[in-house]
């Protein structure tokens, strides 16, 4: 049963680095699993942790947030704030007994098309092993 499972991953991609990295993966015709639905944001720091939680409650199997490498943020230091918020969110996940592996923060630059494809491929494999998001069944809104 688990073998047929195709995960759905929401990907919040910062407009300057990671979204451009995803574009480059496409331009280079790199093939990767069609599991991730990209949501373009201006900066990874725009991603309110509530967005991530909402995505889970609405059925995402995992959420990826991707931004510029540390020190390369288009907005100087937005990604450092993202990193901090992510660390807090991970703690919250652990406290609530949720699988913190279902959230991932990655730094992908505009020139890292292959890395983008690799991150999505690896993450998809990992979520496949984890199986569908149990919150889908447990929580009703």
């Amino acid at each position, binding site marked *: 049963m688990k073998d047929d499972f195709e995960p759905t991953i929401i990907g919040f991609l910062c407009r300057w680095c990671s979204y451009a990295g995803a574009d480059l993966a496409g331009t280079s015709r790199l093939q990767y699993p*069609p599991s991730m639905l990209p949501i373009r944001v201006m900066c990874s*720091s725009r991603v309110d942790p509530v*967005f991530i939680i909402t995505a889970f409650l609405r059925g995402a199997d995992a959420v990826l947030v991707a931004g510029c490498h540390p020190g390369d943020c288009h*907005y*100087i230091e937005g990604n450092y*704030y993202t990193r901090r918020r992510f660390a807090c969110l991970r703690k919250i996940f652990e406290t609530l007994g949720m699988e913190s592996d279902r959230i991932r923060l990655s730094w992908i630059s505009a020139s890292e098309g292959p890395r983008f494809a690799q991150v999505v491929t690896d993450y998809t494999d990992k979520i496949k092993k984890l199986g569908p998001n149990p919150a889908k069944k447990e929580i009703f809104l």
Partner: protein
Amino acid sequence: MPMEEKIGVYVCECGPNIADKVDIDKVVETISSLPSVNVVERHKLLCSEDGKKFLKESIQKNELTRIVVAACSPKQHEVTFMRVCESAGINPYFFQLTNIREQCAWIIDDKEEATERTIRYIRAAIRRVLYHKALEKKEIEANPDVLVIGGGIAGISASLLLASGDRKVYLIEKTKVVGGKVREFAKLFPRMEPCSDIISQKIKEVENNKNIEVHTDSEVSEVLGFLGNFVAKVNTSENKAIEQPSEQAIKEKGLENKELELKVGAVVVATGFSMLDLQQLPQYGYGKYDNVYTALEFEKMNAEGKILLKNGKPPKQIAIIHCVGREKVGYCSRVCCMYSLKFANYIKSKLPSVKVSHLYTDLTVPGKTYQKFYEQTKEKDVEFIRAQDIEITESNGQLTINHKGTPNLKPLNTDMVILSSAITPSSDAHKLAEMLNISQGDNGFFVEEHPKLAPVSTSMEGIFITGCAQGPKNISDSIVQAQAVAGKILSSIIPGKKLELEVKTSEISEALCIGCQTCLEVCSYGAIYFDEIKRVCIVNEVLCRGCGNCVGSCPSGAASSKHFTTTQLHQEVVEALR
């Protein structure tokens, strides 16, 4: 959900790029069946002239109010289609482009899969566009005048170029004269041409330029405002305005401090550098032994005429030590190797028989002319020793340099030592950083907005950095950077033209804000201020770049990003997951 909108969806085939990978007929059929959609069309190449005409006519004919285009990456044609929307008479922000090429057609081989995904993307875009709000372009008047802080070579160069572009420039210099540290140099590396030729010519040009108002003995005490509209306060004690000061005049205002208020559109920070305080490195014996000099002291001694020991006798041996304090400050100062070579040339031309030894950790002689200068200097019988852990001692007026680094080398005896020490930020950099709200790196130099994409601007729009204030560099590089700053200012503020502001800024709801000021803390651009009377935070839209960090941090939901509102993103996510 707003219901009365008339939505048009346009799927671009992008020639074979999308058409070969996605079953567009099926996409059109599926999207057409959605209740909220009025028009679904496909086109061979929407970004072509023909495609744009088609899009415009279709929008007008069907009286659409919301547009979704499924095509390439927003990086490619978002602006193109926004312009079409505008020309068709609808607000360009009532438009959403969804990327079915780079992030769908080109990454999925399976046509069925790609088709399913295209439909999902378009559904999410339709849902999002329903929540879009009309946004209007905003413009402000901009003052084309410029304040230049620091009258060294960088400040002078920026001022001259700005003035030649017909800008009024206020050049503020802390000391009594413009010209900066370069004034003290006798010659310039690597061509060994007299420095005075270059610097005095520049100073004369500045003094004769009607567009440049020089204030020496003056310091900037406050800068408020933003790009295009700064107000600066300058404390000045200069009295050159009084041509022939009578005793009375001097009594009245001559020696008193005066405060000037200047209105400018941009600020250039060219405050130069200091040298590392050698008291911090006692192993070199500076201040303790008579004949140990700093680089600037030696430069001055040479410029004044003779190279002599403290006892008035000419030296027989001189050692020049490179990399002094490099480890302490944590960076290479870039120019010391070159001016140390220059010193060797000074010495050899005045005292040809003196033995000159260079002690270095690493030699930095980059670029198209420096290597040659090094080789030519070496040919003049100048010794180069790789040395580490240097310690200087003295006995009976004879200096001894103990060192490691090159095995089997004895301590070096010498009469005179020149210390080429690290260049550090100017002593008041910290004060200036605070006043201008710009940041300093770990090493204390001002930080550029982006090392490659925006190397002369800072996080504060309208405030620029150049010369050694930004980092150690030689005269040529300082001038290059100063001219880059001038170019940036000349092209961003054009007299008579208003400044177009970022549309997708943040806004804070006065009703929801609890005044916690978290947003104020996270903003890198100083774009948020706290209103003490209303007890709420307010966004200055002129400074806001729209990153949305404040929105991500706001605990009360008061902050919001235009065009990236919580609702818009939420709807997009929810629909993508359906």
